[in-house]
């Protein structure tokens, strides 16, 4: 009989259990920020070069690409889906952008790239929602298609803007406010907008609800499919912007751009503390994760460590972050 033995929830004893739980939540909430601060302090103390304007500008320029992708990945993961198309969408939309630049102007081309990113997200989202295939698999397949289309469009060649557009095409590397690069400014603005969208709007509430319990969300009148399509579009726009930054830096775009970076983005989201199970997390966490990953690379350079070990350290860090998260969760249940 299904009715019997409804163990509903294991409710902790109100007194001691709840106190422990709250502490667990607090450590989990801000532990990762403490880790970031610790790395910053360590690098500041151990090197003379870390706290120089040049290094910080460079660092924030570097973090822009992974940070944008981590933002898209975080939003998707909160809503309970993965987007493995991120790097393929990045390449394809950058290529579309450059192609449009060749025929019109740099600004129109950039807008076209962003639009292309949104449209690719729309297609990915529709495929995931309509097919009902697990998002991990569906977006893996879709990413191969996108990467293939990028090869088709370019014929495998590198695409450049016209010679007289080249200087303006590099605009995202130009300095802007406070001496930061334009790429950093774009990144900060986009992250703030998406952060607000997720944390302060009714749309954001629905994203969390869909990720936390899709059936409860549906029975509360939320269109689960539409929410998923929307988060893929957000992720697509983030990918396109990251693609433009890379293209602007390189002065070109090609079909093999940023291969595999979607996994780094997911790693950043997870390091930040966004639950892979959905329904929990925050955009700022993805950024913290991206910063930590970037700082490790930066630290290796500044300290003159052998960078061949860098990936080993990053991998260990990801395991640590997820392991500690799981441990805190189990302890608090």
């Amino acid at each position: 009989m299904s009715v019997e033995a409804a163990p509903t929830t294991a409710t902790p004893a109100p007194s001691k259990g709840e106190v422990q739980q709250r502490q667990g939540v607090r450590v989990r909430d801000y532990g990762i920020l403490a880790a970031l601060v610790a790395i910053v302090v360590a690098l500041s103390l151990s090197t003379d070069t870390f706290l120089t304007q040049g290094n910080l500008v460079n660092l924030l320029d570097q973090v822009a690409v992974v940070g944008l992708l981590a933002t898209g990945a975080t939003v998707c993961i909160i809503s309970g889906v993965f987007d493995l198309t991120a790097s393929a969408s990045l390449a394809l939309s950058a290529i579309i952008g450059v192609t449009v630049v060749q025929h019109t102007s740099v600004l129109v081309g950039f807008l076209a790239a962003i639009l292309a990113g949104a449209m690719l997200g729309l297609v990915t989202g529709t495929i995931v929602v309509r097919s009902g295939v697990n998002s991990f698999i569906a977006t893996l397949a879709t990413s191969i298609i996108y990467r293939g289309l990028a090869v088709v469009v370019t014929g495998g060649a590198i695409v450049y803007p016209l010679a007289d557009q080249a200087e303006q095409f590099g605009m995202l590397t130009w300095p802007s406010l406070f001496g930061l690069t334009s790429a950093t400014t774009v990144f900060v603005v986009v992250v703030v907008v998406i952060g607000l969208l997720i944390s302060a709007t009714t749309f954001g509430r629905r994203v969390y609800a869909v990720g936390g319990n899709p059936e409860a969300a549906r029975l509360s009148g939320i269109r689960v499919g539409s929410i998923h399509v929307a988060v893929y579009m957000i992720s697509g726009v983030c990918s396109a912007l990251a693609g433009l930054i890379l293209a602007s830096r390189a002065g070109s775009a090609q079909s093999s751009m940023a291969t595999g970076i979607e996994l780094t983005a997911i790693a950043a989201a997870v390091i930040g503390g966004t639950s892979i199970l959905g329904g929990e997390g925050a955009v700022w966490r993805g950024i913290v994760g991206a910063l930590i990953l970037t700082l490790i690379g930066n630290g290796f350079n500044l300290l003159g460590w052998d960078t061949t070990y860098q990936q080993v350290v990053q991998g260990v860090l990801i395991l640590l972050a997820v392991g500690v998260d799981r441990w805190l969760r189990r302890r608090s249940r």
Partner: protein
Amino acid sequence: MTSTPRSTPRQAPAIAVRGVGKSYSGVSVLRGVDLDIAPGEVHSLVGENGAGKSTLLKILGGAIRADEGSLSFDGDPVALGNPRDAIAHGISLISQEGALVPALSVLENVFLARWSNRAGIARPKADRRRFDELIELTGFDVDPGARVDGLPIGTQQQVEILRSLARGARVLALDEPTAVLAEHEKANLLALIRRLAAGGTTVLLVSHFLDEVLSVADRVTVLRDGELVLTADAAEQTPASLVRHMVGRELDVLYPEPAPVPADAPVRLAARGLSRGIVSDVDLEVRAGEVLGIAGLVGSGRTETLRLLFGADPAAAGVVSVDGQELTRLSPRRAMDAGIALVPESRKEQGLVMMRSVRENVALASLGSRRAGPFVRPAAEKSAVEQVSRSVDIRAARSDAAVETLSGGNQQKALFAKWLARSPKVLLIDEPTRGVDVAAKSQIHHLITELAADGMAVVCVSSEIEELLALSHRVLVLRHGRPVGNFPRGVDREVVISAAFGDEGEQP
């Protein structure tokens, strides 16, 4: 407690249960159960939904751990909550949810993890010979090569029984085995049970079908609200006497008295010819201020009917209307727009987003009514949530605490609050007080009565017949997805239960 003389078993009982009790979140589901089952006996457990039958079986199988009491098998005391002891004593639990590996064949499942082998190399032919012996014993007709996930439920159950026998089960515990079987399959299973018992296997049978229980069992135990109220020889009992023991409790909760429905109250919710899956051709009407209770056994289509009314599942046929307006292409959104709300059966699976805060959960169904452009208006939300939370008396340390940290009763109140924040015209409630402590239960009962008195139309499904009868102005009984009775307030609960079980001719 009705005490009945038992025959003292000569040898050690196959199963001896002493003082076993179990509770979840402070809600007791089993209390002080003492039971001896002799080797080779067919013993049946009966009781209403929620009486504790499945819990007792799971405790015997070690799947869940009793809070108190002791168990011994074949005279050996065993640890509680340890499936290994149960397995070592040949106790095999066959539950409603199968434990088969879907992608493997029948043969592989029957000998799961105990395949014949020589030095690790599988010997399917040896397994096949063992399989044929089991088939001869049971008389089942099962293709050993078929993949399990392609088989009908009844056949899957046979595979589980074969596996238990292959493992040398000496006690077979069957949880409602016939609920999913066709008539001739039932007859075969009952015959098999007798044969196994004759061969010395002890059989524990949980079933809703009282005739079948009395025809096959040596002795019968009745549980009611987690207490053992009767153990007797099956020959001395009739379906009527069992029903009497199943329901015969005194009122232990003081229920509020519902306000009478005004004579001129308009029909709020109506459904005609509602059908899908097991639900066939359900008509119902609920007036403003009225509470309609839907009774029936598990699997009778109660929950399914509520879900159809809310558009949670699309109906194959039939129409739902609110205030005379027919709702086309019904979906949860459309139902909500028309003023319908559904408090679903499982707050964990369907109702709440467990890791999100109380505030977010309560606000979730009415986000659109407190926004400035795309933004949530935090102050408006806070006061709205506080107001509705106060009205249902949610006791949470903080409104930003995750809802999973709340007690079952407060979670259930949060679920009500979520829908009351929309001020619905029609409230559909599936199991209003499941897994809720006594105090919260009483609060929820008063809440439902007050909402109806204020003019809401309420449809309530509950497995607790007491509760249903106390809250409802009218009770609709479903059996196999069809309405089989529509009783006014004050109907005798045995009449309702008999209608649900389908033996109206034998009312006690």
